[in-house]
């Protein structure tokens, strides 16, 4: 599948990527590249990845999400993963994967607030 299957929107200085489909490994890799290119193109300082549609997140997708956050951080953008379902959180931790170093929020609304506050702090400096 070609890249571009995961929509990426810009809201203020934050990019919002909403994962809505059952991900092929190749789509996962393409998504990572797309997001990083989009950060560069739009000079976004924040990234929100909405995974509320995902009923299951395996180690491959979990690793991609964590690594995307690390890559975005290297570029200077902060990532918040929002909407993780209870069963996904339970499954990841039972597997031994804690998504350490990745900021998460319950909802998109909360994620946007985190990004908004971060952006204000940055401007105040």
């Amino acid at each position, binding site marked *: 599948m070609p890249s571009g299957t995961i929509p990426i929107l810009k809201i203020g200085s934050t990019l919002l990527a909403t994962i809505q489909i*059952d991900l092929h490994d190749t789509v996962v890799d393409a998504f990572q590249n797309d997001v990083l290119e989009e950060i560069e193109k739009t000079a976004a300082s924040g990234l929100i990845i909405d995974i509320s549609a995902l009923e*299951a997140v395996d180690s491959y997708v979990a690793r991609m999400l964590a690594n995307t956050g690390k890559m975005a951080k290297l570029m200077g953008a902060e990532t918040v993963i929002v909407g993780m379902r209870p069963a996904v959180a339970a499954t990841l931790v039972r597997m031994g994967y804690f998504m350490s170093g990745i900021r998460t929020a319950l909802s998109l609304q909360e994620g946007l607030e985190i990004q908004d506050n971060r952006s204000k702090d940055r401007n105040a400096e």
Partner: protein
Amino acid sequence: MKPLSLPVSADVVAESWEIRIDKEADIIAVRQLVRELTKAHKFDQFATAALATAASELSRNVWVHAKSGQASVRVLRSERVGLELAFVDQGPGIANLELALAGGYSTANSLGLGLSGTRRLVDEFHIETKPGFGTTIVIRKWKRDF
């Protein structure tokens, strides 16, 4: 290597599917079938996520390490309902099974949590592997009635 035989219980195979794994998209096919079955049989969201994730991890193992293999998905039914997934491949096998089951060990640049993590998601986990001959893994998870 002969397929792994499990101790036969009173559980009857109510439904059975076979999926050949020889391309990346087959990982999704196995995962989707498992998810449809857990929903059809009203497993809760935790069991659904656990089984879909386990299906994903184990079918990816087949694809990444052996390039091809067979997934069997069975609905077991007696007084209880369960899902059984079997993965059989004639790939390289696992040289250090103990280490692979301990986790944090990866030969294919993954998290190294595939086997150890999957084992923690299910009720029963059986593995048979022989370097140079292949690997057979059978897992079961039972539906809980609260």
